[in-house]
């Protein structure tokens, strides 16, 4: 593994995170990960296991208490990672076009350039015609498409997604999963996606990181064998059902452990 460091986008070594103050919370403990460039990694784990914290550390929104995180992207004017959050990540005072262009605006990309890029991604997520609409005029699914388009339009080599589809209803969620797979297959960025859903992780990921209950550790890393392009239809295959069962078995103890914390 170590000799492939050149192709690894993220290398995490002995990472731990303790939230300070009174009543310290040991969120992450001795995390080791190698994420290849252009790979799609899904992180699953019980609530409160620190998976969002791990994502934030990868994206520089949080610092590690100990251990180190190596990020192997060239430094350009756009941020190395673009985020998609669960909800409320889009700005209500900007219309769709301004929201999607926001990342490049902060990177000082010229107005013409960033708007043309934004229009491309608005078309990719199927929001053409809504450029001038404000987020509150759109449905939850459409707002999440704004957030996803913004992340792609920023032009960062990696995307970090924190339960991007978590707040959507089941049907919209399936459509958005397919859309996300399609977008990623067009432009292979390094993606790390935190999710609660094992199906979602199997459908989207090249590998699945299963985390333990708090303090979060990497319990297991599972390679997803399915070829691409993928679609929701593969959920019907016996292989999919078997893997889902395996991951659930692995996760069940952790979920129980995390519940007994409360």
């Amino acid at each position, binding site marked *: 593994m170590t000799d492939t460091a050149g192709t690894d986008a993220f290398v995490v070594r002995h990472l731990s995170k303790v939230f300070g103050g009174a009543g310290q919370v040991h969120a992450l403990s001795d995390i080791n990960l190698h994420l290849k460039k252009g790979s799609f990694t899904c992180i699953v784990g019980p609530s409160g296991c620190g998976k969002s914290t791990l994502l934030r550390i990868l*994206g520089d*929104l949080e610092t590690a208490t100990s251990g180190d995180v190596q990020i192997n992207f060239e430094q350009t004017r756009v*941020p190395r*990672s*673009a*985020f998609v*959050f669960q*909800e*409320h*990540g*889009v*700005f*209500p*005072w*900007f*219309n769709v076009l301004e929201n999607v262009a*926001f*990342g490049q*605006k*902060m*990177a000082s990309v010229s107005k013409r350039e960033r708007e043309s890029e934004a229009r491309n991604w608005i078309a990719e997520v199927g929001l*053409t*015609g*809504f*450029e*001038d*609409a*404000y*987020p*509150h*005029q*759109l449905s939850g699914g459409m707002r999440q498409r704004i957030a996803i388009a*913004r992340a792609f339009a*920023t032009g960062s080599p990696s995307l970090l997604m924190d339960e991007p589809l978590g707040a959507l209803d089941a049907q919209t969620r399936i459509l958005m999963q397919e859309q996300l797979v399609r977008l990623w297959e067009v432009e292979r960025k390094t993606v790390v996606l935190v999710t609660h859903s094992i199906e979602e992780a199997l459908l989207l990921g090249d590998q699945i990181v299963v985390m333990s209950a708090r303090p979060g550790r990497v319990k297991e890393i599972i390679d997803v064998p399915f070829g691409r392009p993928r679609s929701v239809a593969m959920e019907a295959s016996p292989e999919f059902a078997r893997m889902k069962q395996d991951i659930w078995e692995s996760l069940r103890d952790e979920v129980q452990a995390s519940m007994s914390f409360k």
Partner: protein
Amino acid sequence: MTVAEGVARRVTELDQAIDQEFKREQRLRARDLGLAILTPIVLLGLWELAAATGVLDARLFSPPSAIGERGAEMVADGSLFVHIWATVGRLAFGFIAGSILGVFAGLIMGVVRPIRAALSPTFTALYALPKIAILPLLLLIFGLTETPKILAVAISVFFVVQINTLAGIMQIDARILESARAYKATGIRLFVNVLLPAAAPAIMTGLRVAAGMSVIVVTAVEFVASNNGLGYLIWNSWQLFQPATMFVGLIVVSVIGALVTGLIIVLERVLLPWRHSNSPKKKESKK
């Protein structure tokens, strides 16, 4: 053919039903508007009648016709405008100065923690002080000039706007801030693209409250420390026992209050289009 005809008939029936529902809604709206206008007219009519028949003492409650007459006289001889301009001038200077400083102070306090720590408790304490109570002090310092009158308005406006602006900054959703941080919004860009628009609704609320308050303060100031303006007009007509003139003053002050508040609401709609564009989703085909 018969099937197609059947479908066509059902479509027309549906269209008619939609059309009827739409017309019903329009009728109801027209009725609401009519009732809203009718109520004050009926009240004025009753007042006129009551004054004419002696149910109301016409020496105290000048009938609407007499008030109208008096108003027309004051418009004709120009005296009304002297008072209106005096009041509007104080209001405008005081309001604009107070709100600009209030927004500025609120924003700085919201962004710079030590300044907030230093000023916030004192400002909160001063906020509770009835601002009109410091008029005598202002008169003492500045004498019977325009300055204390404008300052009294400006100070009242300042505190309301400052507190609302600060609250607007402090109440910004942490998730919005995290999103801004994730996309590397910092410094002046963070301020212009995120903090200011996020706080804008609270700032507008502050301005609206301050607008109503500034009319109260300017009137009260003119009661005691002025020889022109609508407050003076109202106060003076009490002393001279001229109820019709007093009512003219009261009506003009209320109209000014309504106009100022209306102006702020219009301003809000222009400045914050994202809060009001509730029109159905636009779907225009792009060329």
